[in-house]
């Protein structure tokens, strides 16, 4: 039986939530933007009116202001967005348990087994659309198809508050004329490569032999060919069985450029504390530390090194991260952003290999100490206990756990 897949996309999500809570913004160009002082000053989302001024997600706020002087920029409030994201998922859950999130505002739903109960895919899509508007006050556009790729394309066709159906009968007319970049995973560089051999639309990709694409793009060529022909069979994962976490990381663009090792060290500790806290909250330990450093000209390096034993202790992660950094960074240019990530995760089960050379009791004490700090912070706030190091420059200090929410997504899990 052919699958029935919906892709539901909350329209201009952050901006819609802000406009809902501030009715006085209705009819005005509104954007949600990061803090300019902290150098996060880009447009995160904008409403339809701002969109009509040509404002794009990801551009700098000052650029957007040039195009639209009356633009109202409000700061993001992730707590609110997560609440609305959950409300949306509660609606989806009335129709299926196969719900897979793609970022905070997009979800795939496999409603194949629900069509006998609720009617066909289009009918369910319209019901979700109507309920979303009534129950949450924000609108959604839904794509209906037999595979995830076309469903996602469909949700982009008609916005806002609408439903598009891409069926085996109409996909050649609706999908194939679209530019290649509309296809998932065709970014700027793939688009250029495709254009070089004269492939501009999704139909062009579908028509060429897969061997040509494989020669050009490697294994991705084959994926793109199957995407373009509607042959993708990737399942929608079942709610609550999303793939195991493979790594936990935080990164930060700092309010000012980092100039020396002292600055960098502080940042590594801030990020490692957040990463370690998240490891502990998921009851995981990691064995490999990766760092990510980007200079003022956006040139980036990524390096990694293993730890002797798996850990969730922030000082061990930070020390390793800083060690990798000292080995690999030559300070040709000041640093703009830094990231720390821990991978090779294991579940601490109580059986650990003791070391002949390290003091394991000390390690245990460190773990207990960190858990104790978690308790204090959960009661009295993140800034109630601080390392002395963090007091050196208050402007650089931050709590990435709460202030810096990132939603990692990947299609192939």
């Amino acid at each position, binding site marked *: 039986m052919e699958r029935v897949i919906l892709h539901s996309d909350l329209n201009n999500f952050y901006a819609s939530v802000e406009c*809902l*809570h501030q009715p006085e913004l209705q009819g005005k160009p509104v954007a949600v933007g990061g803090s300019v002082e902290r150098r996060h000053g880009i447009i995160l989302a904008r409403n339809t009116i701002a969109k009509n001024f040509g404002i794009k997600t990801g551009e700098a706020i000052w650029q957007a202001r040039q195009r639209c002087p009356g633009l109202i920029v409000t700061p993001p409030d992730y707590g609110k967005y997560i*609440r609305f994201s959950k*409300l949306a998922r509660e609606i989806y859950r009335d129709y299926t348990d196969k719900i897979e999130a793609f970022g905070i505002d997009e979800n795939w739903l496999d409603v194949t087994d629900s069509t006998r109960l609720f009617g066909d895919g289009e009918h369910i899509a319209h019901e979700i659309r109507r309920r979303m508007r009534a129950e949450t*006050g924000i609108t959604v556009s839904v794509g209906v198809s037999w595979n995830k790729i076309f469903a996602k394309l469909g949700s982009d066709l008609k916005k806002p508050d609408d439903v598009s159906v891409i069926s085996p009968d109409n996909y050649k007319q609706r999908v194939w004329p679209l530019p290649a970049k509309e296809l998932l995973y065709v970014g700027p560089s793939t688009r250029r490569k495709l254009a070089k051999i004269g492939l501009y639309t999704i139909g062009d990709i579908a028509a060429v032999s897969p061997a040509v694409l494989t020669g050009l793009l490697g294994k991705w060529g084959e994926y793109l060919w199957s995407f373009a022909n509607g042959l993708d069979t990737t399942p929608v994962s079942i709610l609550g069985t999303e793939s195991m976490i493979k790594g936990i990381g935080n990164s930060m663009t700092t309010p000012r450029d980092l100039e020396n090792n002292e600055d960098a060290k502080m940042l590594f500790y801030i990020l490692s504390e957040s990463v370690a806290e998240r490891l502990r909250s998921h009851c995981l330990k990691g064995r490999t530390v990766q760092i990510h450093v980007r200079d003022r000209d956006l040139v980036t390096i990524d390096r990694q090194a293993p730890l002797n034993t798996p850990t969730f202790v922030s000082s061990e992660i930070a020390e390793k991260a800083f060690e990798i950094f000292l080995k690999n960074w030559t300070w040709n240019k000041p640093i703009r952003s830094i990231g720390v990530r821990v991978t090779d995760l294991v579940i601490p089960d109580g059986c650990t290999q003791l070391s002949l050379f390290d003091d394991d009791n000390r390690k245990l004490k460190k773990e207990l100490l960190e858990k104790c700090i978690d308790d204090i912070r959960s009661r009295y706030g993140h800034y109630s206990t601080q390392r002395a190091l963090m007091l050196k420059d208050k402007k650089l200090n931050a709590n990435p756990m709460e202030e810096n929410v990132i939603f990692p997504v990947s299609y192939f899990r």
Partner: protein
Amino acid sequence: MRKVYIDVMSTFTMDGELLPLFFLWEDGTRYDIDKVLDFQKAASLRVGGQGIRFRCRVMNKEVYIFLEEDKWFMEGK
């Protein structure tokens, strides 16, 4: 229109349903809720909010009372 937060006295029924009984308007006047006609999740586009909307009869008039997370509000003029 403005968002008016109110004090509400409520109870839980035997079935576990939340039932508002009376509320205090911002000037302190007490209004009894004669009947809850229905309740559902809804957004208030007029004053900006989202929660469980109770459609209630108060002094022979139908009014909406919203429970947004842990606060009650009404749509004031």
